[in-house]
């Protein structure tokens, strides 16, 4: 699904966020991207989302190089990916339903289909009775679940999450991780960047470890330390 080949990312300031990173994430896999803040986790996700471009090396998505993607094609690439952010990135001037519907409206679904899919997504994250609420009245955990529903409502092939449990207590974090695992079990490829070691160890999944922009360890599932 995703392959990094000798990827280096140097920012204009000269700072090298990633250095010669190589790894592959196969279709249907679930993996954690770990490391301290500043290790390059966010940069790696941004390269997949094409929010940044590799300075050297190649990022491949389903065998196709992202470096050769034209600017006009970037939106279509992003529609195949669901993203969850630490700060939820919800729009507070519209209700929960409209927030989740956004990717479907962008992809051009009809009203009835949008309603059906949004309700299905809300049901999965357990917020069916909140569709008319503004995100502002929801708790942090609920907002994060709205973000997850939005990331998954258009059935993406790949789910990326950047510190999705950053602001949540351990109980809520565990629930969110269970949600990710559920989606993974129906075939969605999942890559989660986090530094929550305790949680990762509980999950027992593959870990890709970054330190100062280098890939320092790639631990297969079932071998967590």
């Amino acid at each position, binding site marked *: 699904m995703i392959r990094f080949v000798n990827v280096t990312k140097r920012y204009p300031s000269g700072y090298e966020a990633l250095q010669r990173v190589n790894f592959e994430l196969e279709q249907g896999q679930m993996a954690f991207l770990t490391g301290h803040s500043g290790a390059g986790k966010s940069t790696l996700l*941004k390269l997949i*989302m094409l929010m940044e471009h590799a300075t050297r090396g190649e990022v491949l998505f389903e065998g196709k190089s992202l470096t050769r993607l034209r600017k006009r094609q970037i939106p279509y*690439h*992003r529609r195949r990916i669901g993203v969850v952010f630490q700060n939820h990135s919800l729009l507070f001037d519209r209700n929960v339903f409209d927030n989740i519907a*956004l990717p479907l409206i*962008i992809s*051009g679904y009809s009203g009835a289909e949008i309603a059906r899919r949004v309700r299905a997504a809300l049901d999965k994250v357990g917020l069916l009775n909140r569709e008319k609420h503004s995100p502002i009245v929801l708790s942090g955990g609920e907002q994060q679940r709205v973000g997850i529903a939005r990331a998954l409502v258009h059935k993406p092939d790949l789910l990326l999450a950047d510190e999705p449990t950053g602001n949540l207590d351990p109980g809520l974090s565990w629930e969110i991780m269970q949600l990710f695992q559920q989606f993974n079990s129906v075939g969605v490829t999942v890559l989660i960047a986090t530094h929550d070691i305790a949680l990762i160890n509980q999950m027992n999944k593959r870990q890709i470890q970054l330190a100062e922009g280098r890939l320092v360890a790639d631990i297969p599932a079932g071998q967590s330390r």
Partner: protein
Amino acid sequence: MKSGSRHSGPGLLALFRAWLRHHGQVARESLVRIRQTPLQSGLMIAVIAIAGSLPAALHQMAGTIKGISGDISRTSDIQVFMRTDVSNQSALEMADSWRQLALVEQVELIDPEAGRAQFESYSGLGSVLELLDENPLPAVIRLTPVEQIASDPAAVESLMNELRAASGVEQVQFDFQWLERLTALLNLVDRLNLVMGLLLGAGIVLVLINSIRLMIDNRKDEIIIVKLVGGSNEFVRRPLLYTGFWLGLLGGCSAVLLADLASFTLCQPVALLVTSYALDSLGSGLLSLGESLTLVMLCAALGLSGAWLAVAQHLDAIEPR
């Protein structure tokens, strides 16, 4: 058309429908947003209305005056003042001979007595003439040129030269010099109006660029999120373009109302002017349907281009980082 002869993917049709649906939806939503910010939008619309109505009202006024002056020039006469020593009899003969001229439609002799009567009735200074021993007024022959040459200064001029050459003629007058000046003035007003219109149009565009730029700034977070979940540039800019279009359209409608209001206010003085020239043709002074539509569409187009320029300048800079 035969169905099934060509494979048209239902996906494509559905996407087209979705595209149309999104246009309708965005058009509605941007109107609602305009209503939700009444002060800001109202100001914008007022600016467009004022900038749009000024040239329209001026154009309308110049048009009305032109119509009147056209009527005047068509009814203008050439006045031939005879020397006071020319007898009534020879003046009458002269008038008769001029009746034969091809370019003259009508000839009327106003002898000194008739001239005196006219002077008394028009000027109210009849008593002044009574103080004099004899009538100081000359005989006047009034010629009405045929309509075709009334608006042709060169033809009128050559006719006047011919009349001047006749014996016993003191002076030949035609009221077209001030008309010429008025026409020149009106042409200047037209030209001025064009320049002013262009400048005000540019003003509308600039004001809109600024307003849409502010909107982009205010909706920065939204734009970033939309781009992150796969919204194309077209998708992001559509509501902004519609906003520019609506502001222009609403401003244009207000401009029509303002221009009509201005014309309406000027209607009475213009009507007075018209009656003083004994003319009966006068338009309502209001913009015609075609003119109104042109003004509205022009303002809408300016609004759209302002939004387009703002979007082209600022939207690319907002990318998720």
